[in-house]
C-alpha cells in the first residue's frame, strides 16, 4: 500500500521538480535561473524519476491518478489525470536522462549566445509539455501537451530569428503540425460524442471501431511524427540550433505522434484497415526518408532523415499491432539519436560552423571521443547485435518476417534497413576517415568536459539501454519464438548488404571523376521533388486566390454588383426583355381592342 503511495508521490515530485525553474523566479527577485541551475534541476529530476521506474520494474505497479480538476466555469474544466503505466514510467527517466545530457552539452554549444537563459527556459518549457503529453490519462491534457510541444518547437526552430530560412522552417513546422491537429481534434470530438469521456481506457466494445476517428489519429501521428505526406518540416527543422534538433527532433517531440498511437492502441487493434494504413504509411515513410538520406551532404540533414526513417519503422510496428515494441524502439532510439546529434554539434563547432560532410574528413584522429561515440551511435542505429538498437530493431524485423502482412511493406522496410546501413557508413567514411578536407586552422578540441561527458554518458546508454530495458520489462505479447535461420538473420544480412553497398559506392567515388546527373540521383537529392511541388503549387494558388478574393472580388461584389452596378445590370436585363414587347404597332393594338370589344358585346347579347 505504501509503495503505491511512493510511486505516485515520486512521480509527482519529479514533475514538480521540473516546474521549479519556471515558478521560483516568479516568486523572488533573488532566485534567477542560470543554465547550470536548469541543468542540475533536470539531473535531480532524472534521479528522482528512477524511483517510480524501479518500483514499476520490480512490482509491476501501475497507477492512474485523477487529481483536482482545474475548473474554469461550471462546464469547462481541465482534468489533471495522470497515467503512470509502463510507457510513461519508462519514458520519464529516459527523457530526463537525454534532456540532462543535452542541456549540459548546450551550456558549451550555446555559450556565446546572449539569451542563453531564455534558450534553456524554452527547452525546459518544451520538456514540461512533453512530459505532460506522456503522463496524460485524459486526451485533453494530452492535447495541451501536444500543442505545447508544437509551439515550443516553433520558438526553438526559429531561435535565430534574424535568419529568413529559420523563420520559414519554423512556419513550416507549425503548419504541418496543424494539419495533423485537424485529425487529432476530429478523433477527440468522436471520442467525446460516442464514449462521453476523454479518459484513455480499454475499449468498450469488441466490435470494430469506426475508421474515421482512427484515420484522425493516424493523421495526427503523420503530422507530428513526419510520416510521408506531412514530412518536409523535419529536415527543415534542422535550421534550429543543434541542442534543439537533438532534443525535439530526434528523441522526444517527433515520437509524440507514435506515442499517441501507442496510448490509443486498443482502439486501433480492433480495426484491421487502420492497422494496414499504419503499416503501409510507415513502410513508405521509412523507405522514402532512407532514400533521401543517401544523397544528403549536410550532416544534420542525414541524421534528420535517419530520424524520419526510424519513425516510419515505429509506425510499421504500430501497424503490426505491437505497441510495446514501438515504445521500446522509441526508448532506445532516443539514446543513440540524441548522441548522434550531439556528436554532430561538437563536430560543427569544432570546424567553426561547417556542416557539409564533403568538407570534413579524418576527424577520427582529431576528435577521438566524439568520433568514437559517433561510430557507436551509427552501429546502434544499424542494429548491430547487442547494442541498444538491436534489442528493438531486430524483434521488429523478426515480427515483420513472421507475420501475415502486405508483401510490399515488408520489402520496403527491409530495403530501408539496408539503406540505413548505407547512409550511416557513408557518413562515417566521409566524416571520420580519409584525408582531411577542412581548412587547417580549425579550433578542433574536446577539452571541455561539458562536451565529452554528455556524449560518453549517452554512448553508455546506447550500449546498455536495450539490454537493461528488455531485462526488466516483460513483453505483453508473445514474440515469435521459432523461425528459420534465414528469417532470423534477415536484419543482419540486409544490414551487411547495405554496408557493402556503401563501401562499393565510396570506392566508385574515389575511382571515377564527376558523377553524371541521372534521374535517380536527382530524385534522391531533391527529396523526391515533394518540397518544391507541394510548397510552390499550394501556396501560390492559395495566396493568389486569397488575394483575388480579398482585394478584387469582395470590392467588386459588394461595391459594384450588390450596389449601383448590380442594380443597373438588373434593370438593364429587365428592360431588354420587356423592350422586345414594345414593338409600337398602334394599328394592331387598336384592331385587337376593337376585336375584343366586339366579341364581348356579341357574347353578352
Amino acid at each position: 500500500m505504501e509503495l503505491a503511495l511512493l510511486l505516485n508521490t515520486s512521480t509527482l515530485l519529479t514533475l514538480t521538480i521540473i516546474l521549479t525553474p519556471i515558478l521560483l523566479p516568479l516568486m523572488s527577485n533573488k532566485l534567477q535561473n542560470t543554465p547550470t541551475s536548469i541543468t542540475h534541476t533536470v539531473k535531480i529530476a532524472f534521479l528522482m524519476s528512477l524511483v517510480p521506474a524501479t518500483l514499476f520494474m520490480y512490482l509491476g505497479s501501475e497507477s492512474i491518478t485523477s487529481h483536482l480538476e482545474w475548473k474554469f466555469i461550471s462546464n469547462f474544466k481541465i482534468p489533471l489525470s495522470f497515467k503512470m503505466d509502463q510507457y510513461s514510467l519508462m519514458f520519464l527517466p529516459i527523457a530526463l536522462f537525454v534532456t540532462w545530457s543535452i542541456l549540459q552539452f548546450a551550456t558549451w554549444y550555446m555559450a556565446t549566445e546572449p539569451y542563453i537563459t531564455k534558450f534553456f527556459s524554452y527547452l525546459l518549457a518544451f520538456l514540461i509539455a512533453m512530459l505532460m503529453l506522456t503522463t496524460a490519462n485524459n486526451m485533453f491534457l494530452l492535447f495541451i501537451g501536444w500543442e505545447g510541444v508544437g509551439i515550443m518547437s516553433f520558438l526553438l526552430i526559429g531561435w535565430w530569428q534574424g535568419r529568413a530560412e529559420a523563420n520559414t522552417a519554423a512556419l513550416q513546422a507549425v503548419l504541418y503540425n496543424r494539419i495533423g491537429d485537424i485529425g487529432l481534434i476530429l478523433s477527440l470530438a468522436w471520442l467525446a460524442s460516442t464514449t462521453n469521456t476523454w479518459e484513455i481506457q480499454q475499449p468498450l466494445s469488441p466490435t470494430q471501431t469506426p475508421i474515421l476517428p482512427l484515420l484522425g489519429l493516424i493523421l495526427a501521428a503523420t503530422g507530428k511524427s513526419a510520416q510521408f505526406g506531412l514530412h518536409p518540416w523535419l529536415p527543415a527543422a534542422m535550421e534550429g540550433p543543434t541542442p534543439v534538433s537533438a532534443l525535439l527532433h530526434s528523441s522526444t517531440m517527433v515520437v509524440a505522434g507514435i506515442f499517441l498511437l501507442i496510448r490509443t492502441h486498443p482502439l486501433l487493434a480492433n480495426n484491421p484497415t487502420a492497422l494496414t494504413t499504419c503499416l503501409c504509411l510507415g513502410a513508405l515513410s521509412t523507405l522514402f526518408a532512407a532514400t533521401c538520406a543517401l544523397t544528403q551532404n549536410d550532416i544534420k540533414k542525414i541524421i534528420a532523415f535517419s530520424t524520419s526513417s526510424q519513425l516510419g519503422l515505429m509506425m510499421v510496428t504500430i501497424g503490426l499491432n505491437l505497441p510495446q515494441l514501438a515504445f521500446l524502439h522509441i526508448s532506445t532510439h532516443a539514446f543513440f539519436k540524441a548522441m548522434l546529434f550531439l556528436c554532430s554539434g561538437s563536430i560543427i563547432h569544432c570546424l567553426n560552423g561547417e556542416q557539409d560532410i564533403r568538407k570534413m574528413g579524418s576527424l577520427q584522429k582529431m576528435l577521438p571521443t566524439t568520433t568514437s561515440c559517433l561510430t557507436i551511435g551509427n552501429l546502434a542505429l544499424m542494429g548491430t547485435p547487442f547494442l541498444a538498437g538491436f534489442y528493438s530493431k531486430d524483434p521488429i524485423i523478426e515480427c515483420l518476417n513472421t507475420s501475415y502482412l502486405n508483401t510490399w511493406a515488408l520489402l520496403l522496410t527491409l530495403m530501408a534497413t539496408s539503406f540505413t546501413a548505407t547512409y550511416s557508413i557513408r557518413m562515417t567514411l566521409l566524416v571520420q576517415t580519409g584525408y582531411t578536407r577542412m581548412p587547417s586552422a580549425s579550433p578542433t578540441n574536446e577539452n571541455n568536459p561539458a562536451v565529452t561527458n554528455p556524449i560518453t554518458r549517452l554512448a553508455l546508454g546506447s550500449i546498455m539501454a536495450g539490454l537493461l530495458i528488455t531485462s526488466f520489462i516483460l513483453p505483453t505479447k508473445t514474440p515469435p519464438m521459432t523461425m528459420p535461420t534465414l528469417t532470423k538473420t534477415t536484419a543482419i544480412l540486409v544490414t551487411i548488404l547495405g554496408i557493402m553497398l556503401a563501401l562499393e559506392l565510396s570506392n566508385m567515388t574515389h575511382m571515377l571523376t564527376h558523377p553524371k546527373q541521372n534521374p535517380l540521383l536527382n530524385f534522391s537529392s531533391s527529396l523526391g521533388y515533394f518540397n518544391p511541388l507541394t510548397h510552390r503549387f499550394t501556396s501560390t494558388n492559395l495566396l493568389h486566390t486569397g488575394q483575388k478574393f480579398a482585394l478584387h472580388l469582395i470590392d467588386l461584389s459588394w461595391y459594384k454588383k450588390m450596389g449601383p452596378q448590380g442594380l443597373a445590370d438588373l434593370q438593364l436585363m429587365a428592360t431588354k426583355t420587356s423592350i422586345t414587347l414594345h414593338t409600337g404597332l398602334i394599328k394592331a393594338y387598336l384592331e385587337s381592342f376593337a376585336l375584343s370589344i366586339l366579341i364581348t358585346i356579341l357574347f353578352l347579347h
Partner: protein
Amino acid sequence: SEMSKDLLPGPYPRTPEERAAAAKKYNMRVEDYEPYPDDGFGYGDYPKLPDKSLHERDPWYQWDQPDMRHNWGQPMHWDFDMYIRNRVDTSPTPVPWHIMRRHFLIFLSTMLIMFGLGGLYPSYRPVGPKQYPFNDLYLERGGDPNKEPPVVTHYEI
C-alpha cells in the same frame, strides 16, 4: 504628411501621355511600364511587374532594405507579401517542373499500385490444413457412436 494626389495610384491610363505620366510616377521607364488589363478588377494604373519572388534577387547586393531585397523608390509587386522570403519561392529549380511532377507522380503511383498488389498477395509463414484430434472430431461432428470411426493419421513416425 500625406502623399499628394498625383503620387497616389490613379485610374487606368488610356492615352500615351497618361502612360508616360504613370510610368514616371512609379519610377519606371516607359518601355517597362505595363498596367494590368482594364477588366473591372480595380487595378487602375498600377504596373504589372513580373511574378518573381524575392528569392530570385541577388542576396549579396547591398540593398537599401536587405530583408526585403528592395531599394528605395523601387516599385513593389501588387502581391509583394506573397513573394517575400518567407512565402512562395519562384526561383528556377535544378530540374524542370514537368519532369519533377512526372517523376513524383510515377513514384507515388508505383508505390500505391505495389501496395495494392502486396495486399492481394500478402506474405505469411507456410501454413498447412488444420489437424483435429479424435479422428477428425468424428463424434462431435455427429458421427454414429456405435459405428467404428474411420481412422485418420496425421503423421508417420
